[in-house]
């Protein structure tokens, strides 16, 4: 009971008075309470009024039952049908949750496997410069991995002449995307707007699956859906347990 606690004796006694009037307090508590009540009028009043309250509550009249609650066969069958329907819904919900879980796993695995190619560049550069330079030159941002696109768009290193600051970049057959970028440069220079897809500065896209944002978005949506479905299943199971 902790009578040696820092709480005042009055607080300790009052906290245990209810158990005392119910004869549920332990022997140590009873001894302390009885010795204290003999000397403290305020706590004695507490004890007396709590005892009276308990007695009054016990005298509250019982309410008449308004009708019989005997179950009819029809009620039981209706509840049974509803139970089966609930069980079926729960089964579907679990199936959908499992499917979403598998999809989420597949998407995360795909994300890791395909390694989306996003080359972050601190300053925007014209796409031509970025794409036209061979791999390994300083035109690629330092410390970033070359993208799949850059690798595909760049001739093999063996065929590339050594590049020095004095020499211009060797002429190469432009790939589709380089041509795209060239076209962008031309039309911009001529004052016309480029009509095709303009890559974001610092981002090189070859395929839709290399967009990191897309992967994050799909993972986010699937993850959220998975968590919500799990919460619904757990909540439903708890309700069923409490109801029975």
């Amino acid at each position, binding site marked *: 009971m902790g009578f040696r606690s820092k709480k005042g004796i009055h607080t300790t006694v*009052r*906290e*245990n*008075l*209810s*158990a005392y009037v*119910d004869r*549920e307090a332990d022997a140590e508590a009873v001894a302390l309470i009885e010795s204290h009540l003999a000397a403290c009028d305020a706590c004695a*009043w507490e004890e*007396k*009024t*709590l*005892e*009276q*309250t*308990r*007695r*009054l*509550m*016990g*005298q*509250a*009249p*019982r*309410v*008449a*039952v*308004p*009708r*019989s*609650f*005997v*179950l009819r*066969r029809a*009620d*039981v069958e209706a*509840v*049974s049908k509803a*139970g089966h329907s609930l069980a079926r819904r729960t089964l579907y919900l679990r199936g959908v949750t499992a499917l979403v879980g598998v999809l989420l796993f597949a998407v995360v695995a795909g994300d890791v496997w395909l390694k989306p190619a996003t080359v972050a560049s601190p300053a925007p550069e014209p796409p031509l410069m970025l794409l036209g330079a061979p791999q390994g030159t300083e035109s690629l941002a330092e410390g970033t991995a070359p993208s799949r696109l850059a690798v595909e768009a760049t001739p093999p290193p063996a065929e590339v002449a050594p590049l020095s600051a004095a020499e211009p970049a060797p002429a190469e057959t432009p790939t589709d995307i380089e041509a795209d970028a060239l076209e962008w440069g031309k039309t911009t220079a001529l004052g016309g707007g480029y009509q095709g897809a303009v890559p974001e500065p610092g981002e090189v896209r070859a395929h839709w699956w290399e967009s990191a944002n897309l992967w994050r978005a799909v993972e986010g949506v699937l993850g959220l859906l998975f968590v919500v479905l799990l919460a619904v299943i757990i909540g439903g199971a708890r309700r069923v347990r*409490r*109801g*029975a």
Partner: protein
Amino acid sequence: MDEKELITQSQEGDLQAFNQLVLTYQSTLYNVAYRILGDGDAAADATQNAFLSAYRAIGRFRGGSFKAWLLRIVTNACYDQLRVKQRRPTDSLDDMAVEPEYDANLADDAESPEAYVLRQELGAVIQQGLGVLPSDQKVILILSDIEGMSYQEIAHVVGISLGTVKSRLSRARAKMRDYLVQNGELLPALYRLHDGGG
């Protein structure tokens, strides 16, 4: 037929046997539900739902006190009703408190009609006092002081520790005492709290 036998037959799907148990406990369940909810219709719904849930789940009853098991189901049904009420508070005429019909059969034989009327007034004031308590304290006070259950039984019904029962009951009873002292004029003189006894 004794209770154990009725339970066994109910577990085998015998609705008649289960209804014998319903007749035995319907007054207890309805009274607890009425005191928790303070509304006759809501209490009737909670009681009916509790018996339906109990019938569906009786296969999982593993012995012990059948009354405590039923009370656990009905208190959960009442919590559900209170949650629904909190979500959809309404002030229609249908929701106004109606004086309940008290069970005249359970009144003491020696009790005069006047004393019976006074006891009904006491019942109404107690119901108002219960209305100011938080649900968790109210349930424990009802099970202890109106249903006369022990701390151990209450702990089993509500699913909390003995220590929690003690502390919640202590707070609930003190609040009820304060309510009865502050609203003493609502009580018949016979029942007013004073130093001389109740």
